[in-house]
């Protein structure tokens, strides 16, 4: 009887692991400036503590458009309310002004630390301007943070699988990852 229960649980777990339908999207760089580079991936500055996300910067603040990274139309839900900042602020739990694209089965894709402008707000669009590159929330300098999570846990395969690492050029026509949604 115990064996039967164990087998049933095993089958259910295997089904749960296998049945995690998600769609592979494509994420390009967030800034249409050739001076934009990836400067943190799985670890802060590539050698520091755990990060599991991409940070991209072009050494500017409140100047360049911070674009939706996903290629194709997606629904970007905006969480705003943070005053303009380039070197950090305590706002929205450290995320600053940010957007979330909610996919299926707990998957999401987030872009953080926006410097809000007239473009900022919930919208459906294809690589449109969502605000400016800034440093609202937990940020030591202006940059774009992007992560891909399932049920709140950050994943790294979306950028490691396409070879994105520190120093990768993050111009808006360059593919940085294939997040699951």
């Amino acid at each position, binding site marked *: 009887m115990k064996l039967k229960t164990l087998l049933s649980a095993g089958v*259910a777990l295997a089904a*749960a692991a296998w049945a995690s339908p998600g*769609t592979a999207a494509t994420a390009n760089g967030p800034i249409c400036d050739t001076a934009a580079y990836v400067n943190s991936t799985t670890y802060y500055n590539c050698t520091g503590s755990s990060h599991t996300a991409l940070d991209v910067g072009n050494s500017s603040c409140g100047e360049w458009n911070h674009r939706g990274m996903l290629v194709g*139309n997606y629904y970007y839900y905006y969480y705003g309310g943070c005053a303009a900042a380039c070197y950090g602020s305590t706002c929205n739990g450290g995320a600053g002004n940010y957007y979330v694209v909610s996919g299926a089965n707990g998957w999401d894709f987030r872009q953080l630390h926006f410097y809000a402008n007239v473009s900022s707000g919930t919208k459906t669009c294809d690589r*449109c301007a969502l605000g400016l590159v800034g440093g609202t929330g937990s940020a030591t300098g202006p940059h774009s943070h992007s992560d891909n999570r399932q049920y709140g846990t950050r994943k790294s395969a979306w950028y490691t699988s396409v070879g994105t690492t520190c120093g990768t050029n993050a111009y808006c026509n360059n593919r940085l990852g294939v997040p699951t*949604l």
Partner: protein
Amino acid sequence: MGSRMNKAPGLRLSLRLSLWLSLLPGLALAQGAPVAAPTQTACTVEGMLDEVRVAMKTGSPAYRKYARLRLKEAAIALPPEALGRAVSQERDPAVLEAVGAALATKASNAQKPELLQPLLSRASQDVDPGLRAAAVRALQGSPSVEFMAKNGDVVTYEQLVRDSAPEVRQAVVENLVTESAGIYFGHNPELAEAAVKVAAASDDPAVAKRLLGEVSMEAASPEAVRKLTQQLRSEDAGLRAAAAKALGGVPGSESAGARRSLTSLYKSDSDLAVRKSALEGLARLGQSGARPLLESLRGVDPRLDPEIDAWLSALKRNLQEWHLILREKQRLSP
């Protein structure tokens, strides 16, 4: 020396193979057939459309796809006026679909829904049904419901689904299904509402069934749920069944009313498929909490008692996601 001896049989084999292949008439013709080589095109809307036109007429499926995608991606940097003019003047459906999709990308990227007006005019007013359908298909993958609303709802899917041409109605369904799943992942109340309205406006039960069956209702508003519930009284059994399944996916705030409607449907409808769909809707609404209600429905239609048993067994597993429960139930009773 040994190496040369090893190569010789392989060389002979490849010579023989070449000889045989050259004798095959189809391949010999293919070798001599003229191939349309891609030519250099100017980076203007007109130049790129010439390329799309050639690709659509003589290109392979892969080249056609490439030419369409290239135009769509280039549209972000192309002048919207030229794209709009091309959409207004194009007479070839395949090219209209490609340039229309490019215009939709431009409108979305620039956040200017008004750019879509020439495409919406073609979709609603062109005399050629093939061109109307192409214009509707060009909107696929764009936030078309939102953009139609921002253009004052002058053209809506409710109008387009009444088009006399089946290909236009088909394109409407494809757009809504794609938009719900691909852009919003089922989380959008406007899409759910649009699907219910379009299903109600359609005279074609197949269209309505597909919409209710495939557009997610997880964010449906109370008004959309009310309209969906009305479809349970449709004369078409297939439509009643699709509405019953769709009611299973409404938000938690609407679940009590949906549960009552589905229970009543199960008890009163004489169609077996409709009753089966009502059971599925009830199982989805309550998941493991639906077991007492499903138990109480035993005996209403003895032919469906095995179906109730299958649901009870699947729900007993306490699986946490609907697609897992559904798969388990299908494994027990397809």
